């Protein structure tokens, strides 16, 4: 079983996000990057499948600040191979990033043929496209997103994928392999990896560096950002202040007034 997991680093929203002076994007000076949450789930799902059925898990990502930490953590968690794609233009958006990933997947030895190609279903900066369907389209593979459970049976070349629908309803799909899946949530929350293991992996394993292919076409994104800004809130909550006891009494009063208490 050959599993590829495409990862992306996204701005960490724990830090206060500010707009850059030119007002077109984030001020990247204080932005920290973190692995996109559903990509973390995609990795976890890949590792769970590997633990159940054996196989090889390769993670790949475009170079970004703090990516190395994420790749070493992936290796420490049980991924077999980590690949960093260097030299892509800075500030590349999802559409171009997916194209670069697809080209590398197609051209780097040992990646294809893959049975499963996983990515997070969606990242919160996927302004100009979603990675999983873009990969699927470029690689000519089937695609299914919002997957929360994946079981692959190589003997019949099919996977059973569960997709989430509204209202807690789920849909069970049969998908011919190989295929691309956008993972919403792994069957279990992403595992913890002891720092000592990551540090050991930093000494014993390498992250492979692969140069990004020259872009034979420019302007893949076709989306122009005119302006980025903090949300103008049409309304804001009336804030209740004070220690827990005080705000609780205040809130009780409000609820009583409205006949809710």
């Amino acid at each position: 079983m050959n599993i590829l997991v495409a990862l992306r680093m996204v701005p960490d929203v724990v830090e206060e996000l500010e707009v850059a002076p030119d007002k077109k994007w984030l001020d990247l000076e204080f932005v920290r990057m973190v692995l996109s949450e559903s990509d973390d789930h995609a990795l976890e799902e890949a590792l769970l499948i590997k633990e159940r059925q054996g196989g090889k898990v390769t993670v790949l990502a475009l170079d970004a600040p703090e990516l190395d930490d994420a790749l070493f953590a992936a290796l420490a968690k049980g991924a077999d191979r980590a690949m960093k794609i260097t030299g892509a233009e800075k500030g590349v958006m999802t559409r171009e990033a997916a194209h670069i990933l697809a080209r590398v997947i197609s051209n780097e030895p040992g990646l294809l043929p893959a049975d499963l190609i996983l990515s997070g279903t969606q990242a919160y900066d996927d302004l100009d496209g979603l990675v999983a369907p873009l990969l699927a389209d470029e690689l000519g593979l089937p695609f299914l997103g919002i997957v929360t459970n994946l079981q692959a049976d190589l003997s019949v070349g099919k996977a059973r994928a569960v997709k989430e629908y509204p209202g807690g309803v789920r849909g069970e799909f049969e998908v011919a392999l190989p295929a691309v899946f956008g993972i919403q949530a792994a069957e279990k929350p992403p595992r913890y990896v002891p720092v000592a293991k990551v540090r050991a992996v930093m000494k014993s394993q390498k992250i492979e560096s692969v140069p990004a292919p020259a872009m034979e076409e420019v302007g893949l994104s076709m989306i122009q950002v005119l302006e980025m800004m903090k949300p103008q809130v049409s309304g804001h909550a009336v804030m209740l202040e004070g220690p827990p006891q005080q705000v609780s009494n205040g809130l009780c009063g409000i609820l009583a007034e409205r006949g809710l208490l």
Partner: protein
Amino acid sequence: MGGVGLAEELNTSSACTEITFENLLQHPKGREILTCIQCGLCAGTCPHGDVMAYPPRRIIGMLRAGLLEQVFKSDSLLACVACYACMAKCPRNIQLTEVLLPLVKEQVFLRLPELPAELHKALENTLRYGNPTAESPRKRAAWAKTAGVPIRILAEDPRPVDVLWFVECQNSYHPRGQDISRATARLFHALGVDFAILGNEEKCAGECARLLGETGLFDTLMDYNMAVFSKYQFKRIVTSGAHAYDAFKYQYPDGFKYTLEHATPFLSKHMDSLKPRLTRKLEYGVTYHDSCCLGRHNGFYEEPRMLLRAIPGVKLLEMPHNRINAICCGGGGGGMWLDTYYKSKGYERLSERRVKEAVSTGADVIATSCPYEITRFEDALKVLGFDKKMVVKDVTELLSEAMEG
């Protein structure tokens, strides 16, 4: 002055951190472990003894029988809150909490199939943000803006300073911890202490990580902190964090050559200039909770009591389990983030047990000197319904309250 702490009694040094299972028998402190007489005092005194499948006695028994792997596969040691109670009672003076337990807990940690969610997040956050809550490192010194007294931040003003005040995570980010920091700043200022803080450059000292078994995280934090300390010139480090104190004193390598003090004994040394300033009468019955690190481990029993007695109007009431016998609040060794896990296993909350004892003294205030205790005891008071009867205040908060103007 005051009592002798276990660390001094047993001659604890950072060499403890160099002992591994492999070199155990080559190291005198390691060989000591095998002098265990299986008396069971450790198990009897452990606050979680009723639920601990492997108290030190059993661990050593399993070590002798070559069955340690069984211990490593059990999650029972997550119940160890690193309170030093077992070490205090051991008639062989084996450094249980300092040497044996961290070694075992590290192996347990590496084998846990899944970490309790709260702990998982706390550790990830500490690695990433330098504090266990997912708070921005850039907000670590935000509390200083409302301290009411000037607070120097070394990154902005790197001139040499007398005291590098290591504030610590809980005291920087948690609202109650911030109260302690503001009180401490006020006291330092009134006493004319020349101090500065690291501000946003400060990161967790890593003590809990180490005692929980996450030695990799501890190593990462230690490397970072040692590098930051080497950037500045100061005569001593004074920390408000009892756990940070222990980290620097016993876990950081011998390269940590700085003079180190904890804020409470530090303040007690300034009694002559402090006492005249404590002019507001506080008519409180106060029971002092000895924190495990400051008290049992380091012997600072009398300093906090001296400070409390210096406050006019304060009447000190002792709990039955005081000084070396104090009952842990349950926050050490990772316990701070294992509440939901312990509850799911049906353990009684240690903080609730302790609060019941505090209430029985008839005091109005539980005085503390470790930031974990404040939130744990306040929570316990609420849960038990005693929050109208008793409040929790740090020693520095009481001092600051008694200091008018």
